[in-house]
């Protein structure tokens, strides 16, 4: 089932000899600044990549399409359609006629070539051009993968382009683990599934015989924590992505455990444990199995998430009477409330950069995904609907994916993503319904 992942090798060969020209002009590099204010996407052109071996034509066309979908999908770039192009790129090494690309107002130009090597592997190389300055941006690069990994090659190219044009770290070559949903609300079947960030290459990790909830990637993307009812009660399970083997994470019976998440170093798992009517947050050292209770008291404490430095935990508690967000030291101890707006706050997730917390807010019959600074200031709501929840951060902290359930008897759940600016809200294309996404690391 997961053989593609195990066999996938990507070699970054970098710097195509003889092709790297010098960009020594004393000029600002082509750059799009990602700010609250950016509303005008940067126009770019990506002519079909050149097929350098006879059998690479189809791959060259598809690969350059995916690069374009990645870039345009951010909302930061606008592709100039190919039927508007004046010239074509017939050879990867030929000089670029910049005037032809200036004439259609392409600020950036991406050229590429695809071939199949002697072992049947796909080789892609690309170059990024600043059309108006007439220079190459960064070095040309070359990536190689087995044929079933061709989409990752496209994401690698798009990641390079995104990083060079925004100055930000990228996120396209990443995967998302989520719950695939089918069937009506009162008989919904749920399975764990994994996919590329854009909804492609969905693979199922569990059957639908037991309810599964809220999978969470390990920091390196090799393991997934999730909650399963397979034993009859909700319990934290852990699954190896490589061989799809899973086990109950913690063997205690008779109590419920759920809402697990890894520490940034992957050595500790925090989760909620229910004893009687009370739900508290616990931590378990994976190597030794030693557990430690982090919260005490009769209120509900759940949905814990570590800060990226591993020193603090943000979580939700109804100790004040309604669900609110709190931050405590990773070892437990005094917690500070950070949410003070109207309504209830839940499912906090610390941002990869450490400066913000994403959350679900419930107020006046509506649900929102929002972000706030870790001291609770600068709260901004990014979405509004009948039911939005379970935010997860892209590896670069620029985009949030979440689940949205529609209203009524025909209600269904789907995955959406939105920029932390609040723009570019869009549905993630999955074959069935989806919920509880967890965005993995850049690969």
């Amino acid at each position: 089932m997961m053989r593609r992942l195990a066999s996938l090798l990507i070699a970054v060969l970098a710097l195509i000899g003889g092709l790297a020209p010098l960009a020594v002009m004393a000029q600002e590099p082509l750059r799009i600044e990602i700010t609250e204010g950016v509303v005008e996407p940067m126009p770019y052109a990506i002519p079909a990549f050149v097929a350098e071996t006879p059998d690479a034509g189809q791959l060259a066309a598809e690969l350059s399409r995916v690069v374009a979908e990645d870039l345009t999908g951010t909302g930061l770039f606008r592709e100039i359609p190919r039927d508007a192009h004046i010239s074509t790129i017939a050879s990867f090494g030929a000089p670029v006629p910049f005037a032809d690309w200036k004439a259609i107002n392409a600020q950036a130009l991406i050229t590429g070539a695809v071939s199949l090597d002697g072992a049947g592997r796909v080789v892609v190389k690309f170059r990024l051009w600043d059309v108006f300055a007439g220079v190459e941006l960064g070095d040309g690069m070359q990536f190689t993968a087995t044929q079933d990994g061709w989409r990752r090659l496209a994401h690698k190219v798009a990641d390079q382009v995104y990083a060079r044009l925004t100055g930000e770290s990228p996120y396209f070559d990443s995967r998302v683990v989520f719950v695939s949903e089918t069937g009506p609300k009162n008989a919904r079947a749920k399975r764990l599934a994994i996919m590329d960030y854009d909804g492609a290459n969905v693979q199922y990790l569990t059957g639908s015989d037991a309810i599964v909830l809220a999978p969470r990637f390990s920091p390196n993307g090799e393991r997934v924590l999730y909650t399963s009812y397979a034993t009859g009660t909700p319990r934290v399970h852990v699954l190896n992505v490589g061989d799809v083997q899973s086990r109950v994470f913690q063997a205690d019976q008779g109590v419920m455990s759920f809402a697990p998440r890894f520490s940034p170093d992957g050595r500790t798992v925090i989760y909620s444990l229910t004893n009687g009517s009370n739900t508290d947050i616990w931590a378990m050292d994976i190597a030794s199995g030693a557990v430690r209770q982090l919260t005490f008291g009769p209120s509900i404490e759940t949905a814990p998430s570590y800060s990226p430095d591993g020193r603090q935990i943000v979580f939700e508690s109804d100790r004040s009477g309604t669900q609110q967000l709190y931050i405590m030291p990773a070892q437990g101890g005094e917690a500070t409330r950070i949410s003070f707006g109207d309504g209830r706050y839940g499912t906090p997730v610390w941002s990869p950069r450490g400066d913000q917390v994403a959350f679900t807010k419930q107020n006046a019959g509506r649900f929102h995904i929002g972000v706030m600074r870790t001291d609770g200031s600068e709260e901004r709501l990014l979405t509004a609907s009948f039911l939005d929840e379970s935010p997860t951060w892209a590896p670069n902290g620029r985009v949030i994916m979440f689940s949205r359930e529609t209203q009524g008897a025909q209600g269904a759940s789907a995955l959406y993503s939105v920029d932390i600016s609040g723009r570019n809200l869009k549905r993630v294309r999955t074959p069935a319904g989806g919920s509880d996404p967890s965005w993995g690391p850049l690969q």
Partner: protein
Amino acid sequence: MTHMTKAILLIAALAMSACTNADRFGDGAGAGGDAGAAVGTGIIPGSANDPTSPAYFSQTVGDRIFFAVDQSTLSPEARLTLDAQAQWLLTNSDFLAVIEGHADEQGTREYNIALGARRANAVMEYLTSRGVPASRLKFISYGKERPVEICSVESCYAKNRRSVTVISMGSGV
């Protein structure tokens, strides 16, 4: 009033069940072909007419109670139903029960699991306070994962904010 009426009826039924087993279906009831001890009583063992059956428990005693939004406190009506559940469990001591806690869809997933646990636990504590041994009871929360009604208005939500007492045959507890 319907709850009250139902409660009175079932208390009466429980009081009578041990000795009378009235032949409510007249001559026709035994004609279903069921052999064995039940023939002549007119009650098909295991059916909803059999006061010792889980089907009777769920349909006549009442297997579920309902909660207010975000609450786990037991209403007076809920307590009446649970009194009858406790009585039934004490009378039919071979059975075990799993108490399921549920929430409506207006809430985040993890919180609703914890809320469902609070509800199920409130039921469990009440049943044990009425003498049902805790060893015969377990609870589980489904959060908002298993609604019975699927519309997105209060009439459906009210039926989904529930606990359900599910009876199973014990193993000689």
